[in-house]
């Protein structure tokens, strides 16, 4: 879209977009093209010699048992994280929306974890669940007799990174749900109340359906978060272990590329991730269309 009234200048617009263009060409498009290019090449670890091998890297990748395991872990991890943090966020937001007083204080108490770095969230939860010193590990042992050891047990480790990732994301979901709840017309709720619908029924029949675009948007954003922004948590808490049980796809790109120096495989994995994020972005923008329909 363009303004009806605009300036005309031969060089100025190019000068204005120059900084942005330089940055995205150098640090976004060139590396992405390189990843695509390298995913078709087989190189030695130093990148000196390479040859074109068509889809060899991809077929090698998809024959790799560990890659499939990593895909499974990533999907389980992402959806558990998203579900956990969305449900807590929705519950707390729905409750906060009922309260008349002290809204600002409640909000203050709920939004601050957004500011905490994923890596720090990882450190804090690692301590809480630490097999020898963690209070939660201790309580679980004491009350339920479960031996908790995320350092040795894969499932415990995966559970731990899910909790650490979901906890940090509750604030984000809370903010969006509060915004969504406040945009629902009060008159609808009041009309239903006059017709005799109970508060719970009003929530399920009116509020929840009207929140569905927000819910869908948050589901996509939380999955994106779990896929791409939880690197810090995994690196501080488990480093992909034990035995690859928390090796998400992003962590595997890092590990195979930087530690294993397998350039071709790392590049092929990058390309797979690009496809994932293209799908997620398209889904996200589907939501935007929906939102326009609802409000207009």
């Amino acid at each position, binding site marked *: 879209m363009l303004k009806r009234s605009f300036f005309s200048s031969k060089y100025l*617009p190019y000068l204005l977009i120059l900084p942005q263009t330089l940055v995205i060409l150098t640090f976004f498009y060139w590396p992405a093209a390189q990843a695509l290019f390298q995913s078709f090449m087989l190189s030695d670890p130093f990148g000196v010699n390479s040859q074109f091998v068509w889809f060899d890297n991809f077929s090698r990748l998809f024959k790799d048992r560990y890659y499939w395991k990593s895909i499974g872990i990533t999907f389980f991890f992402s959806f558990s994280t998203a579900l956990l943090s969305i449900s807590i966020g929705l519950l707390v937001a729905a409750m906060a929306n009922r309260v008349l007083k002290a809204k600002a204080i409640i909000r203050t108490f709920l939004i601050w974890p957004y500011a905490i770095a994923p890596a720090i969230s990882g450190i804090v939860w690692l301590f809480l669940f630490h097999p020898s010193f963690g209070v939660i590990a201790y309580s679980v042992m004491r009350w339920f007799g479960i031996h908790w050891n995320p350092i040795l047990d894969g499932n415990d480790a995966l559970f731990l990174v899910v909790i650490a990732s979901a906890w940090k994301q509750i604030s984000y979901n809370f903010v969006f749900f509060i915004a969504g709840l406040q945009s629902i017309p009060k008159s609808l709720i009041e009309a239903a109340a006059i017709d005799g619908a109970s508060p719970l029924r009003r929530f399920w029949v009116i509020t929840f359906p009207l929140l569905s675009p927000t819910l869908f948007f948050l589901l996509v954003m939380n999955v994106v978060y779990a896929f791409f922004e939880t690197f810090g948590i995994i690196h501080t808490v488990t480093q992909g272990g034990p035995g690859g049980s928390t090796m998400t796809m992003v962590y595997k790109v890092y590990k195979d590329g930087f530690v294993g120096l397998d350039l071709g495989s790392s590049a092929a994995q990058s390309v797979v991730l690009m496809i994932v994020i293209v799908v997620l972005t398209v889904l996200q923008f589907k939501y935007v269309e929906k939102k326009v329909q609802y409000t207009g």
Partner: protein
Amino acid sequence: MVEKTPWLDLLTYTLLILGIGIVGFPLFYTIIAATLPVEEVSRIPMPLIPGDQLLVNLKTAWIKGNLGIQMWNSFIMAAGITFGKISVSMLAAFAIVYFDFRFRKIAFVSVFCTLMLPVEVRILPTYEVTANVFGPIQRIMEVFCMDTLIGFFTGSRFRISIEFSLLDSYAGLILPLVASATATFLFRQFFLTVPEELCEAAKIDGASPMKFFTRILLPLSKTNIAALIVIDFIYGWNQYLWPLLITTNPRMSTAVIGLIRLIPQMEDLPTWNVALAGSLIVMLPPVLVVLFMQRWFVKGLVDTEK
């Protein structure tokens, strides 16, 4: 809200307190642990009464984690990314909305597509570019056989080699992260709502485009800029993967990275009190930004849909 429901109100408050408790418990526990000496923090279960070692632990963490210089680096990185993102995307949005030029659509679409290229999916090649920012130019010249071409004309063997590494530098920490599709959208969206008459009036008064930008658009965008400052500062401060990759010199790394060295390993003395005191120091700046700029934070989050 509409009718009186004492039981539901009770449930509401109970759930709210429970929710705040779940969200707040890790911080509460961290603060307690940071005040205890090492014998207390490794006792099972750890006492829940604060000790008197807070200052000692903070000091140990500050020195052991080399946090002084790293907090400064984090600040430079976060401030640089914030300033860079906002100015770069504001200028681009201005060009896209207020000028008619040939590559307008392409400029917009190419910024949009960066949404699909987070640093996590192009880790290795981005690292390579940062290790030599002139790499792309060199590769393009190699493809066009510039070496042989120039060699042919000058009659001597010629090899072009330009190298400039951004590893272990502030520019390397900041530049690859300053492009922002969301900020460009936000400003574009906002500029489209600015009344046409303002631009008309400015033109009639003989203002140049840049004068219109600095005198009219910039002041009008104040709230958007404030919202983006909060979001981008947190984004920059909390970066992890990128500084981990490109800084090898501990004097150039950031505070969040520095914390890793404080985590006690299996064979060490379990100095969790120091690690958690360090975590408190490093989380303080972004948490304060969120708490004191709450209104802008919520606006920024919802507007950029970040």
